[in-house]
């Protein structure tokens, strides 16, 4: 099924969780914040969120800035 991650359409396995997506991308969970359909999801809850077709995920982290 298709979901959108950071504005890009991606194909993922059905019933994937947020946690699985992050692991699969090889991202370090400590540095990240996630939005699932515009709701902020704390790290402890990533494994309970099962994704559905057309869901929208934003993955953000800290960068240098003034």
């Amino acid at each position, binding site marked *: 099924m298709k979901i959108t991650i*950071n504005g890009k359409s991606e194909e993922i396995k059905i019933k994937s969780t947020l946690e699985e997506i992050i692991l699969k*991308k090889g991202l370090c969970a400590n540095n990240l914040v996630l939005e699932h359909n515009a709701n902020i999801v704390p790290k402890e809850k990533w494994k309970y969120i099962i994704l559905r077709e057309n869901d929208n995920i934003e993955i953000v982290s800290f960068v*240098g*800035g*003034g």
Partner: protein
Amino acid sequence: MEDFLEIAGKKIQNRLFIGTGKFSSYPIMRQALEAAEAEVATVALRRVDPDLKTENIMDFVPKSCQVMINTSGARNADEAVRIARLAKTAGAGNWIKIEVIRDNKYLLPDNLETLKAVEVLVKENFVVFPYMSPDLSMGRRMAEAGAVAVMPLGSPIGSNRGVKTRELIEIMINEINIPIIVDAGLGRPSEACECMELGSAAVLVNTAIAVSNDPVKMARAFSESVCAGRLAYLSGIPVAEKTASASSPLTGFLREEE
């Protein structure tokens, strides 16, 4: 002499706040923050590029630094609020510099959207620092809405043009009873010193330090000049006069005054 800036219960001695953008590497950034003995550093939030596995900037901000999250990239109040909430969830604390910009040429802030974001975030117990175009009425409204300080710009972000808005900033310093922190456009230590002499509570510098040939030395130069400017302000700077006033006794060398 004990002189510190107290914000949200935190006592800040170093009135040079440093932005973490544009450094050639995170280790250099850390060395610059350490050289300046910075106590407040700003950091931004961005979409992750999964193909670019970069290190976590937070690991390079000295533990002694209070992190202030910059909402840069926000084009309206809602986006700024969203960034603030994301940063808090990520464990970056609740100090937020609200930066809302829709103008890409001069990067001048949208004061009205900024005020809206202040109103929302203060109610959510954020410690809010609005970045704004210098304007007395708007500055007062920011203060009334609960901003802990206001951050008027000296000149456009990254322009290194100095305190082009000096007279407006002076008015804000004299009339608004929360700290005024000059942010953006300061290109050299003497300009940071100038802001402090005027009575700014602090200044925020990023580009001038980060893109210099030796950011570590430059961070120290800014830190020392901010300190000098503050001392001068506290000492009471004498007014400028049009005519001379002798520093030595006015008698002639070997004769009486004529």
